[in-house]
């Protein structure tokens, strides 16, 4: 168990020039001891690179990795004593389940009776006790993935367990079971867990803290509700949520600011120097309103989709260069659902509205 500090950058090719040459742009990050973290982002955003740097499979081109303050940058994965579960189950085909679980301990020269005891315990925890003598090669993908995890857990002193999209090849109905198992193990063992995924549901349900990454950059670290309520970067707003956040261009004028042809008083916190900014609001928080409601904007309904438990309405606001599409979710209850082509008013400005300049959230707590 360990606290992991990162302060590094990584490029796969030598002598990187522009930002594009970096797999990971310079970043500083801390994973607290016993925390459950998720690295969330689209394919190619650098999350697996980051994970492999923590495990020691990849050495960062610059910077340091510290476990509990000790520099481990030059150490091998074995010396760092971490465990990693890969996307595709890795098991030793010729061995039984028990031999698979014992393998890391055997390599480290642990006594036979101690190995037996640890293997028994871990097998029980992972519900593999009945299959201990079976050949690992014959098992289903979810059992194989449990074995991969088990090979990490048999080491009592393991620093951290890393997961690289471990549920990709698992059947959907087993995913929930495995995820619950992971949660349970985290509660019992209080290990530091880092989980890489591109599935936001997986990340948000698994982790206490989610690191959202894009193009080699960690853009926000926060809990599920922080990421949902106050995305600190437009990418987070766009990536988290289904559908993602609505973004509308806004322009400052003498009295306040203008969005989609409507004028509003300037929001608190947005400094006067910022000429153009972006307004972001979650589809969940856009409500149908009347023309007399403060913060409402006229719109024309473009599309209405029945998603089962809710209605997804797309509406066009503004005209010409300020025209944009706003999506909103209407509960499946007794509300009236607008028809396509109908003129409606949408409440866009409110407590849940976020303001962005240059893709970054304008913090309200910075009045000047």
């Amino acid at each position, binding site marked *: 168990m360990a606290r992991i500090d990162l302060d590094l950058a990584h490029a796969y090719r030598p002598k990187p020039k522009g930002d594009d040459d970096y797999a990971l742009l310079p970043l500083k990050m801390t994973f607290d001891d016993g925390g459950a973290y998720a690295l969330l982002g689209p394919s190619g955003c650098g999350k697996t690179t980051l994970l*492999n740097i923590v*495990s020691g*499979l990849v050495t960062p081109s610059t910077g340091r990795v510290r476990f509990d303050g000790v520099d481990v940058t030059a150490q*091998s*994965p*074995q010396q760092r004593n*971490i*465990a*990693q579960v*890969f*996307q*595709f189950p*890795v098991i*030793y*085909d*010729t*061995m*039984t389940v028990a031999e698979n679980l014992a*393998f*890391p301990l055997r*390599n*480290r020269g642990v006594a036979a009776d101690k190995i037996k005891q640890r293997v028994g315990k871990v097998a029980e925890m992972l519900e593999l006790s009945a299959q201990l*003598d*079976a*050949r690992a*090669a014959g098992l289903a993908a979810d059992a194989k993935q449990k074995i*991969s995890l088990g*090979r*990490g857990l048999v080491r009592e002193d393991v620093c951290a367990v890393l997961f690289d999209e471990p549920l990709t090849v698992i059947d959907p109905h087993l995913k929930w079971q495995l995820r619950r198992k992971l949660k349970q193990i985290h509660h019992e063992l209080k290990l530091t867990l880092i989980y890489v995924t591109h599935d936001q549901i997986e990340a948000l349900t698994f982790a206490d803290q989610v690191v959202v990454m894009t193009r080699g950059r960690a853009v926000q670290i926060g809990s599920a509700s922080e990421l949902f309520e106050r995305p600190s970067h437009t990418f987070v707003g766009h990536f988290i949520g289904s559908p993602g956040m609505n973004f509308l261009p806004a322009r400052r004028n003498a009295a306040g600011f203008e969005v989609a042809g409507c004028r509003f008083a300037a929001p608190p916190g947005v400094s006067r120097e910022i000429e153009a900014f972006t307004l972001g609001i979650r589809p969940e928080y856009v409500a149908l309103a009347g023309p007399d409601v403060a913060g409402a904007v006229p719109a024309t309904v473009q599309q209405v989709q029945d998603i089962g438990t809710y209605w997804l309405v797309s509406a066009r606001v503004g005209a010409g260069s300020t025209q944009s599409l706003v999506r909103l979710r209407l509960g499946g209850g007794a509300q009236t659902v607008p028809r396509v082509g109908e003129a409606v008013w949408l409440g866009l400005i409110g407590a849940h509205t976020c303001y962005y300049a240059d893709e970054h959230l304008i913090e309200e707590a910075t009045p000047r």
Partner: protein
Amino acid sequence: MKPVNQKAWLLILPVVLCVAFSAVLPLMTVVNYSVQDIISPERRVFVGTEWFKSVMRDDDLQGALWRQMVFSLSVLLVEIPLGIALALGMPAKGARSSLVLVLLAISLLIPWNVVGTIWQIFGRADIGLMGAALKGLGLEYSYTGNPTHAWLTVLLMDVWHWTPLVALLCFAGLRAIPDAYYQAASIDGASKFAVFRYIQLPKLRGVLMIAVLLRFMDSFMIYTEPFVLTGGGPGNSTTFLSQYLTQKAVGQFDLGPAAAFSLIYFLIILLLCFILYNWMQRVGTADKGPGHE
């Protein structure tokens, strides 16, 4: 009862015809010869199993069979481990890898009889590089005079000619192992030997099976190279089964015994391949450890 659609027979007819002309008819001709004494094209006598009995009693054939078994076994014992070692030592990617692959494949591109000629010259004590070098070292090497030397030279020639095939197969097998296995092994603290024993070797099982069967069948039917190099001599020391068969069928025109022997030869290869295949299927997949139901 439902009427059976007989049109399905038409669909397999092309395959049946192909197999009949390419395999069944030639084989039946051989069977035909093996049970008759063909005195002249017009006169033939049915002799039953007489040819089989006489062939089995033939001391020369038993000698050739025994020689053949030892030779094929030696080929496998040398070429398979050597091929695996070569594949493990080859660079995995980049220009160096391509270069090594090309260099390795060269011997596979040389026609059999040229291989024999190359080694015939290579081993000559007067002008051959190897022969002269061994002579220079004070060894009395002669593949034409010494049966052991001749036998070893044929083996060496086969190893030189065919080990690259085993290496290429193993190389392909090794490249097919996902990186995650090596990463997991390094996280589990596995030694280099453990990686070989528990990851590489099990993952190579499929290609090794092909390599073993190919090398076994090919070496069991070896003909051209020893024929060119030693002509089966000195004495009978490098006369393998197919050369013996050719002597009988073409040289002495004993079609009956030659046909009977062909069938026995065919059955031996089939049987040994069957045994090898089943044995290799079982190695590494059998459940081990007591108490497993």
